[in-house]
């Protein structure tokens, strides 16, 4: 009897807790070692690498065109931007001029993919916070986008749509109307999500003032995309360093003020609206012409090194590419946004409870295969 009571006695000791690798709220396979005092997080170490597939090494054994399907697998929630960044890197290296129609198609597809990716974020984030229904709503709209993609390139997840010098296929005839309908319906749906979330008291309690990220810290850790824009740092590569004729589009870069979970949510919701604007502009202003520049069958870019970077839904994504003049790249380094964003987690979650950690991690919108490559 005495022994039992001795064991029950509450203590103030720190203890370690493994969260993951298989935990539903870690969005894949991430292991977090939490140092806890009671329910509060003292410190945290993310262990990555469970999904390492050595994509960078694979690139060294494939030709430039053959590597394109592999870029789909870097970030499976947003494959189009991964495709685009690779195509841009190789085109920059070889000095290929992309036809305007292909550039517009790339913008169109990338922005559709941005919406699809943010919808996943919204659904999964709500799921993490305990709301199940929004998950079904967001996936209903995402389904439409996937249908558009399937119509165009034949796949729903691994698109392999971009090619070096352009895109693989032109839009099917029924695409225009379906896409127009989508943007029209989708704006109403965003209002619906906002009605469900934005000023919902439960959602506010779970997200407001939690996980505040100062700009300086975010920049130090290499955070990018909506994560850093939620703090109010105005950095969007589509504006700062326009690629693929983004300079011709009229859109705003939504910014947060404080940098808490709610701000990051808000930035993404606004971005969905802005993406809709870009999609409409791209559909209306779609130039006629070729969809692919002439690229020789045996493609040998000149020796040299090049960096491409784009604004993927999760932030800055890019390739560092070294060529030795042969048909295969000499070295490929992939910079993904999720890796930088994950590093902030340690700073953000100190002092918060485990339940808040789930909210903070959800707000960073990390895709684990992108972290590990």
């Amino acid at each position: 009897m005495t022994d039992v009571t001795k064991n029950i006695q509450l203590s103030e000791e720190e203890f370690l807790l493994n969260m993951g690798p298989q935990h539903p709220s870690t969005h894949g396979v991430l292991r977090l070692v939490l140092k806890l005092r009671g329910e509060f997080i003292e410190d945290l170490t993310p262990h990555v690498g469970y999904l390492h597939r050595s994509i960078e090494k694979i690139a060294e054994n494939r030709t430039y065109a053959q590597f394109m399907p592999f870029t789909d697998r870097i970030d499976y929630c947003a494959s189009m931007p991964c495709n685009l960044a690779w195509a841009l890197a190789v085109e920059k290296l070889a000095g290929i001029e992309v036809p305007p129609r292909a550039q517009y198609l790339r913008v169109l597809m990338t922005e559709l993919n941005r919406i699809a990716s943010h919808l996943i974020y919204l659904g999964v984030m709500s799921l993490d916070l305990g709301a199940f229904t929004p998950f079904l709503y967001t996936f209903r709209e995402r389904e439409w986008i996937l249908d558009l993609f399937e119509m165009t390139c034949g796949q729903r997840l691994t698109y392999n749509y971009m090619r070096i010098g352009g895109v693989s296929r032109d839009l099917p005839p029924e695409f225009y109307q379906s896409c127009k309908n989508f943007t029209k319906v989708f704006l109403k749906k965003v209002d619906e999500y906002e009605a469900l979330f934005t000023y919902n008291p439960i959602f506010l309690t779970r997200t407001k003032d939690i996980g505040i990220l100062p700009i300086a810290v975010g920049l130090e850790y290499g955070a990018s995309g909506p994560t850093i824009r939620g703090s109010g740092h105005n950095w969007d590569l589509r504006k700062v360093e326009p690629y693929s004729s983004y300079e011709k589009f009229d859109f705003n870069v939504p910014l947060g003020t404080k940098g808490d979970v709610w701000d990051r949510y808000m930035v993404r919701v606004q971005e969905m609206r802005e993406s809709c604007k870009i999609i409409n502009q791209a559909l209306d202003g779609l130039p006629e012409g070729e969809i692919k520049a002439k690229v020789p069958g045996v493609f040998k870019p000149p020796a040299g090194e090049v960096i491409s970077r784009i604004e993927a839904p999760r932030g800055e994504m890019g390739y560092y590419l070294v060529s030795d003049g042969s048909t295969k790249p000499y070295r490929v380094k992939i910079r993904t946004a999720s890796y930088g964003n994950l590093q902030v987690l340690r700073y953000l979650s100190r002092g918060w409870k485990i339940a808040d950690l789930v909210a903070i991690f959800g707000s960073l919108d990390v895709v684990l295969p992108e972290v590990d490559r």
Partner: protein
Amino acid sequence: MGYFKEFFSGIYNLLLGLKTTAKYLPERAVTLQYPKEKWPMPERSRGIVVLLSDPDTGELNCTACLLCQKACPVAAITITQAKNETTNKRYPKTFEVNNTICCFCGLCEEACNFDAIKLTGLYEFATFDKESLIFQKEKLQELGRNVKYEKKRKSVAKKPAAKSETTETKPQSAAPSDPPKGEEA
């Protein structure tokens, strides 16, 4: 009295809820009874790889040029070339697609100049045996029998010409590619 009030308000609320049910009742169901019904796959859908045959002669369009084999990023295609001695035409002696590693990227279809290989909307190929996922030429041809295809831009320019060449000036068209063929066969 409070009991009856609650009773009626309960019934009222039940009917209110059933109103929503009634609204959606006449609408078509979103779900499909999967094995019996199927979604129509889009024309460009990238499912399993098949080999296409000429609808008139029933022979494979493939000329064993190995372009698809070279284009495949995961080396799922293995071809052995052979030469028909009488017509002096190349054809694939064996054509093997390993569906356990195929990533359905569609690069083989793009590389092909002869409308010989295509990714189709077929997708039901679950088996208990890994070996049976490695498809041989005969199986691929059988799958591609009824697949409709439109001739590619490239091949529209090339194929009629190639056809006329095969009937009139066969040796010329085959001549430049003779050496590698000889080595393989």
